[in-house]
């Protein structure tokens, strides 16, 4: 041991000596701390935490030298924030890797993140805000033997909280850029790709011979010609029944998903049309476990991910078990100097999305479900979500900028939140947002945001009278308004006050204000912010993957730093 220490010190000193001439590599990383206190607030249903304060923290350290890189991440959950899975508990180095590349071959051992195609059959990623980290642990090889040809293959287990799921994944992916490979300089470019993934999990069922190796494969195509672009991918997964002893509870249907998008764009204008269809396409790292920690593929929602709080009050989550979705976007920038454009131009974005169930439901038990028409089914299907919205942003003069949104959303609350049909029915809400910022003087800006949401119960509600099975009446949340004032002093300070007010709640005792105060300081690579206030319970989504956030009341502190 002493010898090792001595050796390290000597080598350290010798490196120090040479550091002027030799490239000794670099160390960089980042640190994040999120701390929150939880006080009881019976009105909003917020619970106090036994620990009073909960905390998540991460430290990433990466070392790189030329084509070599290695790194670790230390994670600390003491204990995890209330919106995290309680299985995140304790401290540890939960991510470590080493990688190098030489002559077009890249080798990684340890942890890695990977996705094949658009993620229909496989995506390992981290999204700290959602509490998702399904990093792989194993080995991965990427190789580019020829210009325009890329291959990758991997084997590993997928992380769930502080451990790894049972399933072992083997994957391979190939992609060919036709124009690069055959050095043809046509205006039309084509990229073709295919991927295959297989999960091994030991069979433990005493009665049924369920498959131990579950394979999924996908093919994709991307064609580009000037401003036109097409993307399509089709995926298929063999049957993956869960380990139960009753045949009637066992789903032995296969799964499939299809996604495509086509877009046209030129300077100042773009139009995009997308669709996807997914049927029984939930792919997990353990056939017997539920929850987002075990999901290994990625099918995001086709609706626009909004950032204004009332637009995101009722967000859509993807139903990988079965849905059909479509979306259209038009972007248009009216030129400066025209009637609509004014002195600085005006931006328009129109967006329409619609998500519905499959006719006759998703495949269950077997592959015989009649789903005609196969690809596009919109008439008469159960509507899950619909969003029509128009956003206009405009710089009015040197001081004033404004952003307006008008939207109508239809939200199948019963289905998307897993209630008994008829509990809440379908919500239709109309939302208006005005966001205006005014530059007072150099560096000082005040911004005001006003939002309002008018909501209607569409169906089922009166029929069932909003009566729960236990006889409790569940009143509708009704209308909301929101106001925000933000004062920023560039480049260091910000202060925000906001109030969300549920003035239309049918239960007058729940017509509550949710007031939040936030302030922050920002300098170079460090950012500090503190907050105090009440948060509404609800669903928080990033790209169609959602988590439920409990209502909370308390202080928060965030520190983010990178070096």
């Amino acid at each position, binding site marked *: *041991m002493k010898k*090792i*220490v001595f050796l390290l010190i000597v080598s*350290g000193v010798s*490196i*120090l000596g040479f*550091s002027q001439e030799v*490239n*000794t*590599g*670099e*160390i*960089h*990383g*980042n640190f*994040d701390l999120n701390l929150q206190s939880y006080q009881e607030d019976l009105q909003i249903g917020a619970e106090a935490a036994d620990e009073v304060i909960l905390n998540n923290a991460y430290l990433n350290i*990466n070392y*790189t030298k030329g084509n070599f*890189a290695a790194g670790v991440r230390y994670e600390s959950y003491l204990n995890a924030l209330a919106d995290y899975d309680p299985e995140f508990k304790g401290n540890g180095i939960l991510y470590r890797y080493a990688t190098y590349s030489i002559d077009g071959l890249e080798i990684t051992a340890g942890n890695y*993140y990977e996705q094949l*195609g658009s*993620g229909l059959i496989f995506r390992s*990623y981290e999204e700290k805000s959602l509490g998702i980290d399904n990093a792989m642990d194993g080995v991965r090889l990427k190789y580019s033997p020829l210009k325009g040809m890329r291959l990758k293959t991997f084997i590993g287990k997928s992380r769930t909280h502080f451990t790894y799921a049972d399933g072992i994944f083997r994957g391979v992916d190939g992609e060919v*850029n036709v124009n690069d490979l055959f050095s043809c300089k046509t205006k039309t*470019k084509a990229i073709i790709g295919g991927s295959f993934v297989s999960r091994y999990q030991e069979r433990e069922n005493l009665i049924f011979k369920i498959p131990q190796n579950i394979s999924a494969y996908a093919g994709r195509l*991307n064609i*580009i010609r000037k*401003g036109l*672009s097409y*993307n399509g991918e089709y995926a298929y997964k063999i049957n993956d029944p869960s380990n139960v002893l009753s045949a009637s509870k066992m789903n032995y249907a296969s799964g499939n998903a299809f*996604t495509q*998008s086509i*877009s046209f*764009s030129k300077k100042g*204008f773009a139009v*995009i049309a997308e669709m996807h269809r997914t049927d029984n396409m939930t792919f997990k790292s353990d056939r017997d476990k539920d929850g987002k920690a075990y999901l290994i593929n*990625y099918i995001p929602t086709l609706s626009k991910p909004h*950032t204004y709080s009332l637009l995101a009050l009722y967000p859509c989550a993807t139903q990988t078990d079965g849905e059909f979705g479509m979306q259209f976007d038009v*972007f248009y*920038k009216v030129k400066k100097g025209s009637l609509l454009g004014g002195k*600085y131009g005006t*931006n328009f974005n129109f967006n329409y999305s619609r998500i519905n169930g499959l006719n006759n439901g998703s495949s269950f038990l077997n592959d015989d479900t009649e789903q005609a028409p196969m690809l596009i089914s919109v008439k008469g299907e159960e509507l899950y979500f619909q969003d029509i919205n128009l956003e206009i942003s405009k710089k009015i003069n040197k001081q004033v900028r404004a952003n307006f949104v008008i939207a109508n959303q239809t939200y199948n609350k019963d289905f998307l939140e897993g209630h008994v049909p008829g509990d809440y029915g379908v919500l239709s809400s109309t939302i208006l947002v005005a966001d205006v910022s005014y*530059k007072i003087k*150099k*560096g000082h*800006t005040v*911004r005001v945001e006003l939002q309002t949401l008018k909501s209607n119960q569409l169906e089922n509600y009166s029929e069932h009278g909003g009566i729960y099975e236990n006889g409790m009446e569940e009143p509708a949340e009704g209308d909301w308004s929101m106001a925000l004032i933000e004062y*920023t002093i*560039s*480049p260091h300070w*910000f202060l925000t006050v906001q109030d969300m007010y549920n003035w239309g709640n049918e239960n007058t005792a729940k017509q509550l204000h949710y007031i939040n105060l936030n302030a922050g300081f*920002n300098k*170079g*690579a*460090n*950012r500090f912010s503190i907050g105090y206030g009440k948060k509404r319970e609800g669903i928080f989504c990033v*790209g169609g993957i959602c988590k439920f956030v409990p209502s909370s009341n308390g202080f928060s502190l965030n520190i*983010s730093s*990178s*070096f």
Partner: protein
Amino acid sequence: MKKLILTIAVIGIFTTLSLSQNRTLPSVEVKTLDGGNINIQEIENNGNPIVISFWFMQCKPCLKELNAIAEVYEEWQDETGVKLVAISIDNARSSNKVKPFVNANDWDYEVYLDPNKDFSRAMGISTVPHTFLLNGKNEIVWQHKGYVDGDEDELLEQIEKIVK
């Protein structure tokens, strides 16, 4: 105790390593908007400064920053020769929309995609927007997290410092 000495020794060596030279870009591949790949170390601007800005389509402050710079970009380029490289961290699905989105916004930036966040992780990004400034030798000399109105003025001051 031995563990402690060992840790200190290791930390000592590593700090020595990192402090002894300027920060450079990692060797990581990003995607071009027409489906190709490029190692981020290959970006260049004839010895002039480069701004690297991490963003995604639904990030309001990111769009504010990129739109604010777009208005003065021509002036900045004339005065300092600077080039802005915008790195979209939109996921593999939404990254299909980045090219039309960039076109519609009429941005003259060099835009790359980082759908698996390999570049983003190597740069220690935890929140966006996150902006880096590179000198003419592609060494990172300045960085900034977040964006509030007027932050582009500070960025310009930093660019001017390099050009001087």
